[in-house]
């Protein structure tokens, strides 16, 4: 559908309006720093716990529940949820690599701890998992802050 009645000035005003509201959307999507920190600590504790020894299903369930509650709390506080699933092929590839890395860290930690009985393995797996997720959350935060400040045009 085309509309010849739209003047160029009207188009520019509409574009300015789009830009302003998109920036507002990005600004609203910025989560507080405690969100990324808390979530990464929770996951890191889970990784460390499971490579320490076999703790059974309960701690895992509690940590999963904690992660879900944390995400839900973040959404409730900001009133929005950002586009977390990557829209580009590069983004999808990065997510696949991240999942493989975290799975390798999780099961690798369990295997190394049990096979070689190294006491420091749980600490390292927990720290690496926490640090990885914290850096990703900081990257996402910076992305939204930059877009909120500069827009997309």
């Amino acid at each position, binding site marked *: 559908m085309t509309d010849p009645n739209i003047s160029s000035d009207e188009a520019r005003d509409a574009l300015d309006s789009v830009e302003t509201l998109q920036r507002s959307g990005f600004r*609203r999507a910025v989560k507080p720093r405690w969100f990324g920190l808390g979530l990464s600590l929770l996951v890191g504790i889970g990784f460390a716990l499971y490579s320490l020894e076999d703790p059974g299903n309960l701690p895992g369930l509690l940590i999963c529940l904690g992660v879900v509650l944390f995400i839900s709390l973040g959404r409730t506080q900001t009133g929005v949820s950002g586009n977390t699933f990557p829209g580009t092929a590069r983004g999808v590839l990065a997510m696949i690599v991240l999942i493989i890395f975290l799975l390798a860290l999780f099961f690798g930690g369990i295997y190394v701890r049990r096979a070689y009985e190294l006491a420091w393995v749980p600490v390292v797996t927990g720290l690496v998992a926490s640090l990885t997720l914290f850096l990703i959350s900081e990257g996402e935060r910076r992305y939204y802050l930059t877009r909120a400040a500069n827009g997309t045009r």
Partner: protein
Amino acid sequence: MTKAQFDAVIHAPNRLQICAFLSPLQEAEFQVIRDELEVSDSVLSKHLKRLEEAGYVKFRKDAVNGRQRMWAGLTKSGRKALAGHVEQLKQLARLVTEES
């Protein structure tokens, strides 16, 4: 590349603002959208309903502390329509730049 396509449903000022606000988000709460646009509940409801009828917006309801909250997000076709409309606006805006 996005195909430029004027969309009469999206072009109405409030609906364009709603779509633009939702575009970087997965979804947003009704009250947040209302506060950003500075419109009344009834005005926002009317425009969201129009966008839903066009298949551009989807809703989800949840309850927090016993209070019903409504979340709205752009559908895939809504995102596509907005991108096409913005591209059309850019082409029109470019005309004035080239003319002046």
